[in-house]
């Protein structure tokens, strides 16, 4: 039993790892060595010896949810999970037993533009753990029985999500904002899409989409280079590209809302109302990144941000309020989110809209901008401290073609940002009239407080889907 002072939304932390990160002058991302396997795969490698652990990460481009057929919504994620549920030579139980016996953690998950595989292990067990990981990646069985178990578990999880309004509001938002765009596909799938799926369809998706040619990896930890190269060659080095052309992996630009779109989801037993407000962000690697991150740090990206100050610190309306950017190759998303007891949701939204207007119209004071610069710089080194953080950074930078000097440049940019540039970023990215706003709560109590914001599309949490 533990309670914390500050809620740290997972998404916010992830955004920092992904998008932020000026380099303190004294601290730079250590440059990795490049390892090229005979089959063309590239790995980035750094030796560290502080603890006897090794971290391994891999991105498989074009195998994520944006690449799944619309009727297989959630299929990319389910396929990624099924990699660990049996191979040509091991059953699912044997895979779990072997990895857990060694204390090794192997995770697979589908993001929108890639599938991520990560492995953390004691150095002494790393060779065996990597053999198993490679087996999972190269010869997954996609057994019907395992598929059915995982699918049924997901259908049940969707119901559990609806019991938690704080989680459910994100699912409803994703659907309301992206609609039929590939970014609108829920990684969980829907009851309808899960019902349509088959092990065969996921296997076909795997066979078409998982290719060494689209894969980049990193290894950081206590392992010698020569041993690592030999290990990689005899495991993943044996992976061959399937015959046939490489399918396209491009993501169309995300939709841009025109005017306000308001959605109210009725959850009759909720004692708090939860909102997510979203608007367009910017694509990965966009020149506005540094200014946008600094602006967001001040708007909703840290504890003393405007949003958290007004909603939590000054008024005690909520335990947490925050905003964040997410970026993909073809575009991005800005979201602001919080929650409060039912009778305060109108006040909370008034304040939020007021801050959005203030950011665009007035911008930020010089002292605030200086504080945000220091904060971004000061919080950067810990994001690269652990082996897994370094490996994740190498893979991400390589995958998006940003270069290992990306954070050096980024830091230099952040350090030189002026209040005018922060205001320009706010004017461009903080929404005024074109946005999507989703509220989950007890409609009978909150509907009257929401009417002044416009016309709401109403749903019930008990309706199928999101």
């Amino acid at each position, binding site marked *: *039993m*533990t*309670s*914390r*002072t*500050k809620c740290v939304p997972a998404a916010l932390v992830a955004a920092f790892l992904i998008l932020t990160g000026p380099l303190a002058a*004294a601290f730079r991302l250590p440059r990795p060595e490049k390892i090229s396997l005979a089959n063309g795969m590239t790995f980035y490698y750094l030796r560290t010896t*502080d*603890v006897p*652990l090794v971290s391994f990460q891999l991105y498989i481009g074009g195998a994520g949810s944006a690449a799944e057929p619309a009727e297989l919504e959630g299929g990319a994620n389910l396929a990624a999970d099924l990699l660990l549920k049996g191979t040509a030579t091991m059953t*699912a*139980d044997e895979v*779990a037993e072997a990895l*857990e*016996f060694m*204390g090794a*953690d192997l995770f697979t998950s589908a993001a929108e533009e890639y599938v991520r595989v990560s492995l*953390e*292990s*004691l150095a002494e*067990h790393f060779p065996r753990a990597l053999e198993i990981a490679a087996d999972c990646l190269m010869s997954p069985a996609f057994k019907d029985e395992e598929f059915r*178990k995982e699918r*049924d*578990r997901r259908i*049940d*999880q969707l*119901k*559990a999500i609806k*019991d*938690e*309004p*704080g989680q459910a509001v994100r699912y409803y938002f994703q659907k309301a904002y992206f609609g039929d765009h590939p970014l609108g596909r829920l990684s969980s799938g829907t009851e309808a899409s899960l019902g349509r799926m088959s092990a065969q369809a996921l296997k076909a998706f795997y066979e078409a989409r998982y290719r060494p040619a689209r894969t980049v990896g990193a290894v950081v930890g206590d392992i010698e280079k020569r041993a690592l190269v030999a290990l990689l060659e005899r495991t993943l080095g044996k992976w061959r590209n399937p015959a046939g052309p490489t399918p396209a992996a491009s993501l169309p630009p995300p939709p841009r809302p025109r005017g306000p779109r308001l959605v109210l989801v009725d959850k009759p*037993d*909720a*004692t*708090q109302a939860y909102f997510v407000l979203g608007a367009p962000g910017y694509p990965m690697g966009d020149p506005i990144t540094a200014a946008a991150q600094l602006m967001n740090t001040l708007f909703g990206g*840290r*504890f*003393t941000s405007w949003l958290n*100050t007004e909603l*939590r*610190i000054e*008024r005690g*309306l*909520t*335990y947490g309020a925050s905003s964040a950017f997410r970026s993909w190759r073809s575009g991005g998303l800005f979201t602001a989110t919080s*929650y409060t*007891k039912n009778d305060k949701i109108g006040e909370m939204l008034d304040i939020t809209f007021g801050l959005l207007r203030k950011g665009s119209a007035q911008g930020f004071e010089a*002292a605030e901008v*200086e*504080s945000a610069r*220091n*904060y971004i710089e*000061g*919080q950067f*080194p*810990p994001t690269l*401290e*652990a082996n897994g953080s370094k490996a994740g950074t190498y893979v991400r930078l390589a995958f998006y073609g940003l270069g290992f000097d990306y954070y050096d440049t980024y830091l230099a940019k952040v350090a030189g940002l002026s209040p005018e540039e922060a205001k320009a970023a706010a004017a461009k990215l903080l929404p005024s009239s074109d946005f999507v706003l989703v509220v989950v709560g007890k409609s009978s109590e909150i509907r009257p407080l929401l009417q002044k914001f416009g016309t709401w599309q109403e749903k019930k949490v*008990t309706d199928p889907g999101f």
Partner: protein
Amino acid sequence: MRPKAWSALVMVLVLAGGLGAAFGPADVKVHQLDNGLKVLLVEDHDIPNVALYTFFRVGSRNERPGLTGVSHFIEHMMFNGTEKFGPGEFDRTMEFRGGRNNAYTSLDLTAYTDWFPAAALEHMIDMEADRIQGLTFVPEVFESERGVIASERRLGVENDNDAILQENVRATAIMAHPYHWDVIGWMSDILSWRRDEVIAYYRTYYAPNNAVLVIVGDIDPAKTLALVERYYGPIPKATPPPPVTTAEPPQMGPKDVLIRKEAQTPSFHAVWHAPAFGQADFIPLFILEKPLLAGDSSRLHRRLVRDEQLAISVSGGMQPTLDPYLFEIFVKPRPGADLERIERVIDEELARIQADGITEAEFKKALNILRSDAYRELETIAGQADLLGTAEVLYGGWERAFTLVASYEAATRDEVREAARKVFQEMNKTVGKLVPEGGAK
């Protein structure tokens, strides 16, 4: 099921000399000020940052009816102003200097966790020392923060069916000891804490002789100790807080909790009275938790989730506490699952362990998991700071951080079986079920 925050605490740690880690007891510089403040310093220049952790020996264990949740409330108020630094100034100053912080309150302790660039060290020491006795509890700020806590409770308990059930089960299992209530406290107490009572509580528990200061990272230990002496030295020691004397009486029979509530999915939670960290059976039970509950290959995951498909997930185990607490099993049942059947499966698996113990392979697996977890915590300066402070407050001394793995290795499979025989008895058990009702309207 969402793992609760306590899993972080459960990570008990590490390092026997034989494990070959770069971090050992010789790296820890230990000092105690005249006013009783214990100081642990570790120099580590891998990144140009510092982790400064302050642990106070106060948690919900020290509370009483009417003041439940107050330890956690004070944790929040610690950011809300002193004579020297007004409300909000701690956070504003810290973030301006590139730092970030959080804090947590558990059953037994309250910890303040600061992460900042090395150049901010003196400012942080100044502000941390100041708030040990300087809080002003400005009435308007006090009321505003009360609202924050109420929102935190609504988020974490009242809008989360699993949490509602868990709170009920723990409060039913534990009758007399202050572990009866959760750290967040009862809503009626949150809404009615009186300022003078809160201040009296703060004065009792916030004193240098009731605290441990851990500083790890890009520091010069001698200079850092001089700063600590300068800012913390003048703070007077306080009368030591009263001991917690209430002991939980033995349970006289099995207890059941049944909640009927609007929900899409049921919830399930079972607990048994279990030993405190310092008691003999703690480590065998902590080892048992791995083959029983950790990962897809664990006995209960296999039976409940994979073979019988009764559950979406299963988790739980022991947590290190100062007084005897609980062995907990959390199950997220599938909608419509037979909750009686879930209970029977758990009973069967526990009976198997009581009869035959765990296998040699399961024992080795537990040790591998515990070693991996231990090293992972040592990867970061934050992890090292948390480990040392937790060991000092909960495990009986910071040195224990370096002998825990040896303790696990010294345990035997017989001890695991014997501990299971003692703990997993009907007389010791409380089972909670939340059954969905209504829903579609």
